[in-house]
């Protein structure tokens, strides 16, 4: 149950500035809300990156026609992209925001889908097969003087006509899915990046609102399919916390081990994809070779290779197999040997070092301001691991090191991932022999109702903090579910650090940030 402080919209900006001054430098989440009669609003979940204290505040506006909230994008850099998301879903305009466009949906989309009164009928928004036009001008809401308008419009153009603009994506081998960059180039040097998301926006949050709690679980695996276990763990944990349900020790062990296996899986894929993006195809295959072994183990236990649907409310779907421990141990021993191979063939390669060291540097302050958690943040020296900050499951009982690097460049981001594989193996090795006997699931009622209130939980996903926010009004379906995407802050980061690099570096930076698009778009 969260304790959310409501702030009046008039003094909202000042209050937020004060909060920032007290050290609340990490804007974890921004949840747009539609409270029907009580109007629209936004919930901000803040955290102090030094003391890990949290603070939740909310702001409301009763005006449904033209709701406006002051922007926070100059206080927390990540707010710029979060606010675009809220605008896209709820139509809340953020005054003073530098780039108020839709983020996910087409710019000719009618209506704001996450509002409760949204009409999803086909007649209003059919599947359009004509290409989307590019909006060339930001919308701005506090232009004072009309005579300055022409001048301002010129200044606010996203990309100018006289620039060499190329599109990378949405169908492009190196965008890891369907992401679109519009680049303005000067020779090979990138002058400006304009990122378009939403090509795989499936409206999961809206769909959750019409599903019962156990049904919502199915979507989490499909958000970031490379941290399927962690995502589902987060949602289960949140619901269990709200219900006051305690899971058995055995479940905690299984969940922790599976989370770590999934993390190794994801990091291997990151290594592979980075190798492929940089043209080293053999290393790509090497990464996949080991990844198949994890998938074998997962398949045996859960029945699925990629989408496992393993965690359920109160436990896990099925008990582990008898030879699970032996297989995992065999894999761990093998993987330690294989890592050396990766270093030999790819990581220590002189070309790779030249291509990545000093490229795409993200400072620690920026990492926090952007909320770039996970390997990206840790490569910049920000100790942002949820497993250490707010230990859950068994992470306070196991001994592992939080990998931190100082450089914040692409090479460090790659190293963090590879070193985290070693740490994950250490965690698994500490747990695998001690899995206690017990039930693998606690019986729950078929229809689960959460008490009224807001709940949240977060886990360390494969590529950052994955958070779940649920507002319940006591029904069998949630009133609002919000997933904190691990990738959205990374996209904001990419937009910043890709500038002034070459096109080739853009691909490297994208690969090293390691985002998964379905997780960004939801």
């Amino acid at each position, binding site marked *: 149950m969260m304790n959310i402080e409501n702030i009046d919209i008039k003094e909202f900006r000042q209050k937020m500035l004060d909060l920032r001054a007290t050290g609340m430098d990490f804007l974890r989440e921004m949840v747009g809300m539609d409270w029907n009669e009580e109007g629209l609003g936004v919930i901000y979940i803040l955290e102090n990156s030094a003391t890990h204290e949290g603070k939740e505040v909310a702001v409301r506006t009763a005006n449904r026609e033209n709701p406006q909230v002051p922007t926070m994008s100059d206080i927390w850099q990540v707010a710029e992209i979060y606010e675009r998301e809220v605008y896209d879903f709820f139509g809340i305009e953020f005054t003073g925001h530098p780039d108020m466009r839709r983020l996910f949906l087409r710019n000719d989309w009618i209506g704001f889908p996450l509002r409760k009164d949204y009409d999803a009928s086909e007649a209003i928004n059919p599947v359009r097969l004509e290409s989307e036009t590019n909006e060339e001008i930001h919308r701005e809401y506090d232009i004072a003087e009309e005579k300055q308008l022409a001048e301002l419009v010129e200044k606010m153009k996203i990309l100018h006509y006289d620039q*060499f603009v*190329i599109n990378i994506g949405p169908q*492009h*081998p*190196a965008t890891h899915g369907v992401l679109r960059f519009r680049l303005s180039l000067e020779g*090979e040097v990138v002058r400006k990046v304009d990122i378009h998301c939403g090509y795989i926006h499936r409206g999961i949050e809206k769909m959750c609102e019409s599903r019962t709690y156990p049904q919502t679980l199915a979507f989490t695996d499909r958000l970031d399919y490379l941290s399927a276990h962690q995502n589902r763990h987060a949602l289960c944990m949140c619901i269990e916390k709200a219900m006051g349900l305690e899971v058995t020790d055995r479940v905690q062990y299984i969940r922790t081990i599976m989370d770590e296996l999934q993390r190794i899986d994801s990091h291997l894929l990151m290594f592979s994809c980075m*190798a*492929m*993006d*940089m*043209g*080293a*195809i*053999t*290393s790509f*295959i*090497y990464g996949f*070779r080991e990844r198949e072994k994890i998938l074998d183990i997962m398949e045996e236990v859960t029945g699925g290779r990629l989408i496992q649907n393993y965690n359920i409310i109160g436990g896990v779907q099925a008990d582990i197999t008898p030879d699970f421990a032996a297989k995992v141990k065999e894999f761990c021993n093998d993987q330690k040997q294989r890592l050396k191979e990766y270093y030999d*063939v*790819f990581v220590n*390669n002189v*070309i*790779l070092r*030249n*291509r990545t060291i000093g490229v795409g540097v993200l400072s620690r302050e920026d990492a926090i301001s952007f909320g770039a958690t996970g390997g990206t943040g840790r490569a910049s020296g920000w100790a942002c691991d949820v497993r250490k900050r707010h230990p859950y499951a068994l992470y306070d009982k196991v001994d592992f090191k939080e990998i931190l690097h100082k450089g914040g460049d692409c090479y460090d981001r790659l190293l963090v991932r590879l070193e985290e594989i070693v740490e994950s193996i250490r965690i698994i090795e500490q747990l695998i022999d001690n899995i206690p006997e017990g039930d693998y699931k606690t019986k729950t009622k078929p229809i689960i109702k959460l008490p009224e209130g807001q709940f949240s939980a977060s886990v360390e996903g494969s590529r950052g903090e994955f958070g779940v926010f649920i507002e319940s009004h006591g029904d069998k379906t949630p009133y609002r579910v919000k997933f904190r995407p691990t990738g959205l802050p990374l996209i904001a980061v990419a937009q910043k650090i890709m500038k002034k690099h*070459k*096109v*080739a*570096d853009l*691909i490297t930076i994208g690969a090293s940030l390691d985002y998964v698009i379905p997780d960004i778009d939801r």
Partner: protein
Amino acid sequence: MIDFSSINSTIDSYLHSVLPAQVATLVECAIIAVCAIVAYLAFAIVMIFMERKVCAAFQCRLGPTRVGFWGLLQVFADVFKMLIKEIIDIKNSDWALYTLAPFLVIMSSIITFSCLPFDNGLQVLDFNIGVFFIMAASSFGVLGILLAGWSSNNKFAMIGAIRSGGQMISYELSMSLCILTLVVLSGTMQVSEIVEMQRGGWFIIRGHIPAVIAFIIYLIAGNAETNRAPFDLPEAESELTAGFHTEYSGMGFGFFYVAEFMNMFIIAGIASTLFLGGWTPFYIPGLEGFNEAMEWIPGFVWFLGKTLFVVWLLMWVRWTFPRLRIDQVLVLEWKYLVPIGLLNLLIMTVCVVMGWTL
């Protein structure tokens, strides 16, 4: 060893005896052209198949196995498919240049190919400035690539073409320097003479240190010339989708595809001709019996063996290394390879003048 020049002269004199001189020359030209193109295609198919199998072996895979025995017919299937694939007309493209570009690339490649000495006398073009001609012929391929990128009306293709222009013209320089180093050592530019001189010992051994340096630089530059990883920036799959040939479909793309592989073969062929003795066998001075046995292996087997070995080296590099960035490619060339190459040329000259060669 068989001397193919005697066979050639027999055919030549026969044709002259039955046909008037000009017609005979014309017929000879036609025969040679057909032979060269058939050989070119045959080697292209061998190269593509070899690439598939070699890369599969490096990547713990099997490569093609289903089409024909051991996948031997795989490349034929690809060729049939590509031949009948639709060729798309691109809107707003420069039609003439767009159509011409693949032919330029493949022409440059075939002409260079016909300068390779496969065996004693088995060579299409052999004259006193052979090496010079090879360099000239191989370098107009870049024109085709530039035109392809320019005429496609595609920004990716354009960037790819410009990259390729910068890269290939630069690397031509150090390739030529390496070849010059060897010309200094051999004292002739005629390809057949260069090979003949290596009967006494391959140039890579006779030219010792400077020749080895030249060989290494040559391989690097040659790799860059053929646009293969780590220098595959003009295509750069993950950056520019398919680089300069993004808009080409069907056989237009097929020409680029084949030319890429054959350029690699040609680079390797030149390397084996200049450095590894071409079709001359491997001799160990003093071991007469061994040398005698080596004589029994036909010259073209030696040539192909050496060439495919160099090709294999290039493939090994191609599948292992990540790609360079355009500025790094140029820095490598202008700040390292060219100065080293020039210095190396100087060393070689000194060695030759002082008689310090083996």
